[in-house]
Structures are given as C-alpha cells and as structure tokens.
C-alpha cells in the first residue's frame, strides 16, 4: 500500500514538471497576443506582426490568429503577406464573415486580373467539392458511414440478406463524400498554392536570373507551385502562363508543406 502511494506521488510530480513548459508557453503566447492587439490599435503594425508571428511560429494553428496577421500585414501595406495569411485563415475558418469581407477587400487591391477560368467538366460533375468546405465534406463522409452501418445492422437484425434502396443511397453518398475528402487530403499535401509577396515579380523562362522574362506578377496574386529547383519555383498562373520565379518572392500557403 505504501509502495503504491509512493509511486502515485512520484508520477504526479513528474506530470506537473511536464506541464510547466506547456503552461509557460501558453502564457507567453497570451501576452504576445494581447501585445499584438495593443500595437495594432496604436498603429504600430510591424510590432503587431512580430507578436502574432511569434505565436504562429510556436506552432499555433488558429484561424482568428491568421486573420489578425492578415489584417496587420494589410495595414502595414504588405498586400502579398496579407493575402497569404487570409488564405491560411480561410482553410481553418472558411465561413467567418469578417474574414470573407477583409479577404475580398484585399483581393480588390491585387493588380493582376484573375485568369479566366473556364467551367470545367470536373467542376460540374463534382460541384459539391466547390460548394462545401473541406471540414463539412469530412463530417458528411463520417456521418454517412455511420448511417450506412446502422442500416446494415438493422438489416442483419431483421435477417434480411439484401440491402434496400435507402441503404444503397446512403452507401453512394458515403462513397462520394469519402472520395471527395480523400481528394481534398491529396490536394492539400500534393498540390501546392503560393502567393506572390513582392510588389512586382518577373517570371522567367528558366531558373536563373539571365533567363528570358516571360511576364510579370504582382503582390497578392495566387499561383500554383509545381516544382522546386535550386532557388526557384516553377509556377503556373494560368494554363498558358508558366514560368520560374525566385523562392523568396513567393510563399506557399499550406503551412504543413
């Protein structure tokens, strides 16, 4: 009995020591967050950015924090970075009205006109992918999975060896949303999007500064990053506009990448 008590005491002490750095980090982030807000309100946007970046750098993934960073960058006149952080926030809080409003405003300041996107067969056939956000699709897939197996369980209890139309429909929906969610995971890890950071960036035909200048892009323009080589990224602005750009002039949106 005494042995058990001793062991429990040692475990508790060990657990408390483990929690100390975590709490300390939380405290630092809270202070930085409050400071960031204070600086922002005082019009010291760079200082606010530093504070918010510090929190994001500690590994915090939060839509509201990213939104604040977008605001601070926009106020400091760095449109590229603002769009970048708004894009990251959209991944986490896609339905936030404030974010949508500010993002639209920031987009209106972007100089490059969005390439004309033809309505592809893909976007027509898989329209729900573009209507619903990633989290909703994941939840729908899980819900339909649960619903399907409940129906199968009921069928088994009724000793029915065939599945009815309802079960079939639920199965189809389950498969559709599961496939879409899987594609979204693939897109997140394998298809990289980036945002142009500098006011004016020259896109070249090759990955050195002497290559032919193909076209120019401006801060805030979203591009698809297809390949990396040395200090360059191969980017695609539209189907017909592809070129190489220096890595420090574009930043990939996905933080996991």
């Amino acid at each position: 009995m005494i042995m058990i008590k001793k062991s429990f005491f040692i475990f508790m002490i060990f657990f408390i020591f483990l929690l100390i750095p975590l709490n300390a980090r939380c405290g630092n982030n809270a202070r930085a967050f409050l400071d960031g807000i204070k600086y922002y309100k005082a019009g010291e946007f760079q200082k606010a950015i530093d504070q918010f970046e510090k929190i994001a750098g500690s590994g915090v993934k939060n839509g509201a924090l990213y939104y604040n960073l977008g605001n601070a960058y926009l106020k400091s006149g760095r449109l590229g970075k603002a769009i970048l952080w708004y894009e990251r926030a959209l991944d986490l809080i896609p339905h936030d009205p404030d974010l949508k409003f500010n993002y639209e405003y920031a987009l209106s300041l972007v100089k490059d006109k969005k390439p004309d996107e033809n309505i592809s067969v893909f976007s027509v056939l898989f329209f729900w992918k573009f209507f619903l956000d990633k989290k909703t699709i994941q939840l729908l897939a899980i819900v339909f999975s649960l619903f399907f197996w409940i129906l199968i369980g009921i069928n088994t209890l009724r000793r029915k060896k065939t599945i009815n139309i309802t079960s079939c429909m639920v199965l189809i929906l389950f498969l559709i949303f599961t496939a879409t969610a899987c594609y979204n995971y693939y897109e997140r890890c394998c298809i990289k999007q980036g945002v142009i950071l500098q006011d004016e960036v020259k896109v070249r035909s090759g990955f050195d500064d002497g290559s032919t200048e193909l076209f120019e892009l401006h801060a805030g323009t979203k591009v698809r990053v297809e390949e990396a080589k040395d200090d360059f990224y191969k980017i695609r602005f539209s189907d017909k506009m592809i070129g190489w750009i220096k890595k420090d002039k574009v930043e990939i949106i996905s933080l996991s990448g």
Partner: protein
Amino acid sequence: MKLLKHLSGFIFILLMFPAIVYGGPRVSATVDRTSIGPGESLTLNVTIEGGDGDVDTSPVRDFKVISRESTNSINMVNGKFSQKLIYNFVLIPFRQGRLTIPSLPVTIGGKTYYTKPISINVSGVPSETKDNSPDIFVKAKVSNSNPYLNQYINYTFKLYQAVRIANAQFDPPDFAGFNATELSDRKTYTAVVSGRRYRVTELSYVLLPLETGDLMIEPGVLSCDIVKRSTRRRSIFDDPFFGFGGASYEPRVFKTRPLKVSVKPLPSYKGDKNFSSLVGKFDIKFQIEKTKMKVGDSVTLSITIQGQGNIKDALEPGFGIPDALKAYKDNPEEDIKLGMEGYKGKKIFRTALVPVKSGTYTIGPVELTYFDVFRGRYVTKKTQTITLDISPAPTEEKTTIATPSPSGSLLFKKKVEFKGRDILPLKENISAIKNQKEISFPMFAGLLALPAIIYLIIFGFVRLTKESDAPSYVMAKRAKAQFKKAASRVNDTNAFLSCLYSALISAILSKAGVNGESITYKEAEKILAKSGYPEDKTGKVIKMIEEIESARFGGTAINKPENKKLLARVEKIIKELI
C-alpha cells in the same frame, strides 16, 4: 419562261426533224413605223427563220429597249415545214432627230447573224398635240418645284385612260438626289379633260431633297397593252371561255415629261438660340400634371412638338431643372404619319419630377427654333414658364428620397454603396492562441472505419454466442457431423444408412428450429412447407427418407458404388436445407 420556250421549240424540232427542210437560218428586223413623235414608242420585231437564237439589243443606244414577248411558229407550205421565231421589243427614243436602230447580232447555234439597220425619224411635234383628246395619256408633277433642303415635296404620276388597257406596268424615275417614299394608297377617280371623260389613276411619292441645286426627275414610264375589239367575224372561239375573247392587244409605252426641281439651301442661321434642325412648320407645348405638390410626390412634365416636316428628327429641347427636383426621363412617344406633304404628327418627351426639397421653383420656358418653309425664315417658339409650389412632406420634413404614399406615388429606392473602404477589426478573443483541431487523414480513416468495426464486433459476438445454443444451429451442426460420419462408413451399410438418415432428419429439424431424433413423413412435409422450401423439392426429400428407411429396415442389399451415389444425393439435399 424562256427556258420553257426553248424546251418546247427543241422538242418540236426533234419530233418534226425529218419533215423540216433546213435551208439555213435567216434573220430580219422590222418596225411598226419609222416616224414617231417625242414620248411615243415603236415596236421592233426581230424574226429568225429556220433556227432558234438569241437577240442582243445592247448596240441600241438611242432608244430605251423594253423586251416584250416572243412567238414561235411552225408553218407548212407545199408539204415543207419551216420554223419562225419572232422577238418583240418596244423602243422609246431618248432624243429627237433621225435615229438609227443599228444591226443587231443574233446568235443561232454558235454562229452570229446580223439584222439590217433601220432609220427612225423622231419629230419634235408631240403626238399629244396632234390629238386634243387622246385615248390614253400620262402626266407627272411635283407639289413644289423650288423647295428648301430637307423640305418634303410630293411627286404625282397620273394615268388618264378613256379605253381599256391591260398589263399596265409603271417604271418610276430614279429620283436621284432625293429620298423617295411611295405612298401606299393609290387614288382612282374620273375626270373630264377637253370634254372627254377619263378614268384617272394617281400614284404619289414623298420626296425629301438631299442636296441643293437643280435636280432632274427623269420621265416616269408606263407600258401597257391597249385592248382593241377584233374586227373579224365572231366565232365560237371568241367566247371568253376559250380565252381568246375576240380582243387584240396593242402594246404601248407612255412617258411623262422630265421635271426640274430647284432645291434652295437654308439661309444661314444668325440667331442666338439653338437651331433644332427641324424644317417645316411646328408648334411646341409645355405642360405639367399639377403645380402644387409635396416633397416626395411624383409629377410628369411633358414637352410636345407637333407639326409637319422632318418631325422624326426632333430632339428634346433643353430646359433647366432646379436642384430641388430629381428628374427621370422617359422614352419619347411618337404619333407620326406619312402624308402628301411629308411626315406629320407629334412627338412627346416626358420627364418624371420628384421634389426633394420644399419651396417655390420655376421651370422653363422651353424654346424651339425651326426653319419655317412657308415663311422662308427661322422661327423661334417659346412656351410659358411653369411655377411649382412644393410643400414639405407631412411626416418627415427632410426627406431626401421619395417615400410611398397611400395614393400610390412612386418609390425610388437608392442603391446602397460604399462611401469608404477599410477592413474589419482584429479578433481579440484569447482563444485565438489555441490550436484549432483538424481531422488528420489517419483520424478521418479511423472515424470512417469505426462504425464498420463496431458492427462486425457486435454482430460477430452475437452470432457466436447466440447461435451456438439455438436448436437450428445445433441440428444443422449435427446434420453435418452425421453426414461426415456416413461418408466415412460407406463400407458398413447399416452404420452408413443410420448416419445418413440421422443427417437428413437433423437438417429438416434445423429448418424447424427444434431438437429431435426422428420425424414422420407428414411432420417433415409440414416443417419444409412452413419454412418456404419448394414443394417439388419437398417431395424429393420425403422420397429420399423413404428410400433410406426401406434400405435400412427392409434389408435391401446396397453395394459400395450405390452408397456413394446415395451419399452424393443426400449431400445435395442437406446443402439446400442448411
């Protein structure tokens, strides 16, 4: 028509070829008279004998050529056939004097033949003067031979006829230098000229001079056939039923004298008002529905320009609107008709006014400056001014936008627009420093698979625990075991049959879900029927039980191969039952 004629000629020639004596084609030209007056016409016949060809009239320079008709005839003289094709033309001289119809080329079967030239004397004395009361004559006149530029005038063509005519065709002048529009309604009436009654047909055109100076309107040409009663004895074929009617036709062409129109330019405008570019005679009205109203009410202001001339070109005259009134212009309304003297009617310009501020305001006057063709000078017409008395709105004195009223006044909604642009503020909730949970792919896959796993665990466990005690499960298991035992004792007939019987009975009892060792045939039938086993197969099962029992208890000798066959049949039944 020409094609049909050629085709019929060709067929005829083809049929009659052996009889036609071909003596080479001959061409000739003849006229009905060699001396004519100005404005008169003559008839030219080109005859082709012994062939089929085309006549080219392009060398004729001194006459206007109107192609009329052609006739094709086959004659038999002294037993010999000959073909004759006659082309008929009407020629109208362009000038007086001795004119010549030159040699006309006629192409027959790729070869060209020529007619002989014919000399025609066109005298300066018109035939109208020869006869004070001709049967038919034409006249043309313009309503004003000295109009202003952009002043509409009227061109009238009149056909006087005292005899019957047929196939009348009017060829109007080109009206070069004018914009011509034919009036759709043609007038027909009777008139007495020089004591003779004529039927008069009148065609009218409205002309708008497009350029200044002397403009010539060429003669209008009317071609027709004068119907003449035949002088020969009437026969049965003269009946109109047969289409001949006993009348003959004399083709004639009549033309009017050319007309000269001297178009005057508009005098230079020296006034201080804006010239509206209207030419004619016009009037202007300036009206408003009511002069007393409240802020937010709607009232219609209308400017009407009425008159004759180029009214279609009328634009809304300008007039000042005070800032206290919002104006909404409507599309102009037109009520304009084309008449003998050009366009006539009115054009109404309406504007909806909505007062936004109370007070007394004056609108107008509206002025219209046009060129009066009757007076030959520029005229400015001025309307009266309109004074509006605007009282404040009853509920809200500082109304800026019209509000709906019970009387149904217009509601003018205003689009809400950004006055300035900025972003929305920061999110200050401290929860912003917490990590937002995301569903990782392994977690997602796990959550998807979880219901399936739960299902498999629950139903697998239930099946294992529940079914092991159930009689149907026990009996089915026993049937399998007994069948297996029988299969191992094929050589020992008694033991083999006993096990086989037990297996079969156990399989049937498993369908009923009861334990037991033996059953009667009727019981077996009842169980199988209740479980929905097919009726024809039930009979086979019963027969099988009988067969095994009779072998088992009747001492029927069965050898090893027969045992194996029986085993196979029972196996099939047991598989179906369990």
